């Protein structure tokens, strides 16, 4: 999911004969379910792929604050305001856990942020879509966090220790996020006719972008086999996407809302839904920077960073002054 545009080594999985002794021992550890820890030997490609994937996951949490943060000042009750604040705060916290995990691989948070701002690293495509109504806040919690949970639960078993532990902590907090979103959807779907219309409108706009979160179809993701072998990736894109659809459609039906996919149909033989692919052209346009909110999202982050430089510098200066005074006093 956060590996959108994470190019794998491109060479396909090495056979054991092609591996060096170190690489074989490394693969054996992963196959045995052992965790790889920060100071263990690891292939350069493993390290680089993880930095990119964990880093982009972190960036997604941070940028993800923005579409929801939009609505904190307009939240319609004190309770909703508080709950949304708590959720957005959690997202910042998740970003922090993930940056910390990435930093164990030898990259600094500031370097990762610089790569986000320069466009060299990405964040999840979904956050380039706008939140236009309060129902979108419900839909984001329900669908976007729902999709994220689908991806994050298996990642608790990922091979890299710090990433796996960050996922355990994130998963414990994420369930509240999806439920708060669904609770909003319930209120609206069973509310006034204007609210019901808002809820349906949110589902109409966010359904396919949520499906896009899982990345391109497996047929287009030929290079992910190495990441699967290294347990950086646990399930295929299509596996997760299918699971998400199967889980979410009954939830939409309970709300009395219609999933905006005319081809959606229960397939008895496969025990799951048949559904339409998202518009992959749109997906790649958004990744390229042409989504509705790409510029705003990045501008907001760059501005916050640049406007805040004097604060970060001042705190460092104060710490140095304090240290100097302590030394002088001795």
């Amino acid at each position, binding site marked *: 999911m956060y590996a959108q545009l994470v190019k794998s080594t491109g060479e396909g999985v090495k056979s054991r004969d092609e591996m060096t002794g170190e690489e074989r021992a490394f693969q054996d550890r992963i196959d045995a379910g052992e965790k790889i820890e920060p100071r263990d030997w690891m292939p350069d490609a493993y390290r680089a792929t993880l930095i990119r994937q964990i880093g982009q996951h972190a960036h997604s949490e*941070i940028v993800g*604050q*923005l579409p929801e*943060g939009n609505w*904190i*000042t*307009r*939240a*319609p*009750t*004190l*309770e*909703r*305001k*508080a709950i949304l*604040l*708590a959720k*957005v*705060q959690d997202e*910042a*916290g998740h*970003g*922090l856990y993930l*940056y910390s995990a990435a930093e164990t691989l030898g990259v600094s948070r500031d370097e990762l942020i610089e790569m986000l701002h320069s466009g060299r690293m990405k964040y999840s495509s979904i956050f380039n879509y706008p939140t236009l109504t*309060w129902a979108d806040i419900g839909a984001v919690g329900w669908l976007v966090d729902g999709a994220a949970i689908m991806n994050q639960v298996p990642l608790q078993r990922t091979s890299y220790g710090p990433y796996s532990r960050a996922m355990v902590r994130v998963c414990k907090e994420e369930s509240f996020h999806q439920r708060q979103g669904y609770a*909003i959807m319930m*209120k*609206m779907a069973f*509310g*006034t006719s*204007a*609210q019901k219309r808002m809820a349906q409108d949110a589902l109409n706009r966010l359904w396919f972008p949520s499906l896009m979160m899982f990345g391109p179809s497996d047929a287009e993701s030929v290079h992910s086999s190495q990441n699967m072998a290294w347990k950086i990736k646990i399930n295929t894109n299509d596996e997760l996407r299918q699971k998400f659809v199967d889980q979410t459609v009954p939830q939409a039906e309970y709300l009395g809302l219609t999933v905006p996919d005319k081809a959606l149909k229960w397939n008895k033989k496969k025990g799951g839904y048949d559904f339409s692919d998202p518009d992959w052209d749109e997906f790649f346009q958004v990744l390229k920077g042409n989504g509705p909110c790409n510029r705003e999202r990045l501008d*907001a982050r760059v*501005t*916050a*960073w640049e*406007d*805040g*430089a*004097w*604060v*970060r*510098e*001042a*705190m460092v*200066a*104060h*710490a140095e*002054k304090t240290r100097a005074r302590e030394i002088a006093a001795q």
Partner: protein
Amino acid sequence: MKRKDALFEFLLRMGDNTLVLGHRISEWCGHAPVIEEDIALANTALDLIGQTQLWLGLAAEIEGKGRDADALAYLRDAWDFRNLLLVERPNGDFGKTLMRQFLFDAFQSVLLARLLRSSNRQISEIAEKTGKEVAYHLERSSGTVVRLGDGTAESHGRMQAALDDLWSYSGEMFTGDAVDATLARAGIAPEPRELRAEWTATVGSVLASATLMPPGDDFAHLGGKTGEHTEHLGFILADMQFLQRAYPGAEW
């Protein structure tokens, strides 16, 4: 002044302060200088909204007209709001936001300490419940004021400018009226002027560590406590109240 009316006004003042300030802080979500400060600000805003529910909830109960905290927050116009002018000041840069926070936190902490001894049990309970949060806010905001005041030349300049800008809004905290006099006579809440000395000492000590100088001018902008606000409150309420106003009667 009738005690019940004075009590209602006082509770609106308490709840509107935390509501408007919490709202202002929440504008920072996703825009703070560093992730840790984003989390800290969100934490502060969350605490303030929680305190709002307590104060406005009690206000509605005292009023006894069937309103609740949400009705008070979302369905009053600006002239019925009773917050200090200080909390509706624009956020400005991070330094101005934290200076505003510090000046308010210092006031709140002195006031709550007195409210712990209120003859009104419900008020003393809220003061006790929220005391820890307020103490933590003061610890954080004062720590930040010191670090930014005594940081770089740039940060010092920005903090001094923030102090110069906000100082004339601090006097309102210590300006009493008939509401305050009525409640002081009943032992429910202190006369605001009695809080000034302790506040000045706390603030003075932190500003000294921050190498900042309070302005010599003691002019005080007034009006918030009686419903005469600055131009900013209208915009705040237009944002905050939009959904409830556009879809009256809907449940959220």
